[in-house]
């Protein structure tokens, strides 16, 4: 299995991990910060903060431009980050990793650069109803230009993909299957290997939104045989504006650039230009150099923790949270088996509207997210405008879950 889960995964020493994250020393409203919003963005270990600062203080230059020493150092740091990401994801070569600002830009790049080149009227793009807006809207925009058609895999009542009608949805008209590796709204981990095999059987290309999966799970793109995989650095301990797109070399080769400009060209004439080979064809203008270097440091940190241990911790803390939330009387959205879900837990607590709940919890230092989580199709499917969501990462403790549960009582008292 490509999403590996070590049977004998080591566990994290969470207290030691926490010491690496300066923001966890913060207080909010006079209480210790209990940050349960890592699915929105993760915090950054000191090492990542230092990598960015150090880049500016010692190696700052534009990458791939200068002959001078700083230019060479910056280029090397930037390309080292690319190589590290390639290894992290099991990609065959660094050149299969295109740097982008994150998942949203990566999916737009596929939907435009590949989708608009390849898709025709009559073609179908198959998504799922649990996709984040970032894996829906770019395809809607591509549909407008190409005349292809969007279809959706529906959801079961308990938050899984309903694959019972897959044969009718996934046909030789299907040219793309866009699917999240893990839902940010439901926590669901999707059966990627199975979906990819089914898609390939009809000749469709698979675009995986790994924004939520990548931070918690070892991913091996080669073993998975995935065609494109999008990820966000800021959700996996890296800086904002870091991330990228893995793409199979032969697909990247056929892809048109989405942005034109400096450094992605080979030659520019008055009326046309020729472009570089991937990945540079897709990296127009000055890139997020310091940020990708910071992401390299984040990935190195994750590698040291060990992705098996990271996943084991997520699974354990999620199991604990699900149990405590159920005890407290919360309604959970999404699967309740920690083996097939990640650490983003959507819920309603009694009748307290998520906005009110988030506000009241914040007063106790507990940070959760309230809203539609950029997944309005999910909200509509389950008949609610919004949910409250608690999400976890390597620094989350059971004591923090306890703090969440305790704070729920305050909310109940106000709204009783």
């Amino acid at each position: 299995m490509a999403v590996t889960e070590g049977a004998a995964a080591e566990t994290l020493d969470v207290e030691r991990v926490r010491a690496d994250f300066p923001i966890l020393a913060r207080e909010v409203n006079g209480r210790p910060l209990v940050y349960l919003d890592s699915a929105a963005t993760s915090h950054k270990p000191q090492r990542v903060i230092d990598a960015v600062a150090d880049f500016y203080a010692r190696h700052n230059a534009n990458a791939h431009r200068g002959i001078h020493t700083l230019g060479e150092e910056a280029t090397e740091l930037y390309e080292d980050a690319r190589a590290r990401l390639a290894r992290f994801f099991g990609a065959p070569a660094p050149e299969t990793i295109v740097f982008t600002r994150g998942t949203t830009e990566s999916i737009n790049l596929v939907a435009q650069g590949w989708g608009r080149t390849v898709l025709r009227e009559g073609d179908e793009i198959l998504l799922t109803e649990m996709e984040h807006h970032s894996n829906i809207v770019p395809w809607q925009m591509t549909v407008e230009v190409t005349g292809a058609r969007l279809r959706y895999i529906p959801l079961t009542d308990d938050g899984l993909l309903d694959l019972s009608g897959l044969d009718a949805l996934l046909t030789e008209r299907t040219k793309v299957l866009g699917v999240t590796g893990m839902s940010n709204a439901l926590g669901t981990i999707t059966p990627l290997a199975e979906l990819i095999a089914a898609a390939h059987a009809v000749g469709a290309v698979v675009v995986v939104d790994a924004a939520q999966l990548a931070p918690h799970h070892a991913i091996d793109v080669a073993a998975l045989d995935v065609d494109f995989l999008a990820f966000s650095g800021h959700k996996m301990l890296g800086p904002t504006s870091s991330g990228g797109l893995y793409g199979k070399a032969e697909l990247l080769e056929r892809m048109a650039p989405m942005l034109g400009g400096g450094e992605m060209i080979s030659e520019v004439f008055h009326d046309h230009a020729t472009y570089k080979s991937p990945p540079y064809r897709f990296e127009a203008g000055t890139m997020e150099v310091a940020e990708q270097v910071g992401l390299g440091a984040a990935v190195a940190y994750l590698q040291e923790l060990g992705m098996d241990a990271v996943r084991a911790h997520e699974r354990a803390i999620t199991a604990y949270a699900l149990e405590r939330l159920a005890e407290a009387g919360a309604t959970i959205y999404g699967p309740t088996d920690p083996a097939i879900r990640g650490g983003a837990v959507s819920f309603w607590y009694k009748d307290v509207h998520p906005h009110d709940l988030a506000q009241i919890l914040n007063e106790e230092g507990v940070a959760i997210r309230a809203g539609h989580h950029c997944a309005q199709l999910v909200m509509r499917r389950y008949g609610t405008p919004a949910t409250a969501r608690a999400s976890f990462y390597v620094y989350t403790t059971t004591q923090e879950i306890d703090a969440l549960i305790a704070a729920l009582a305050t909310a109940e008292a106000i709204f009783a």
Partner: protein
Amino acid sequence: MALDDIYKEVILDHYKNPRNKRPLERATVSCTRNNPLCGDEITVLANVEDGTLREVAFQGAGCSISQASASMMTEAVAGRPVEEALDLAAAFRGMMAGEVEPTEERFGDLVALKGVVRYPIRIKCAVLAWDVLQESLAGDGEATATSIH
């Protein structure tokens, strides 16, 4: 405790027992808008005759702030000339921006929402109903899905 500022009795009362939350068959204008942050949706319906808001109602679901604000709004503007209702909307928006003094004379029950000023994101909840009222009175009150933020 700071939360008292925003979860006051009067707000919770309007939330739990919303006034004028119902369909309005004689509505001459109506408008539906959502808060893109949370997906909450509010419809405001009004019966305008001779430049006066004869009846005002609302529908939709939302958090305590948006529901209470909508409920109080229907009470505050019903029976008033359109001009006055729009003035009050502007004043309310001013209060939420911290620019208009939150006096009981001017705002009545609505003054209870003044604590929301401290929570920038919740301000959107508080003004949602007022945005929808304004848009419905602006004439293009068809229930389209234009956003407000």
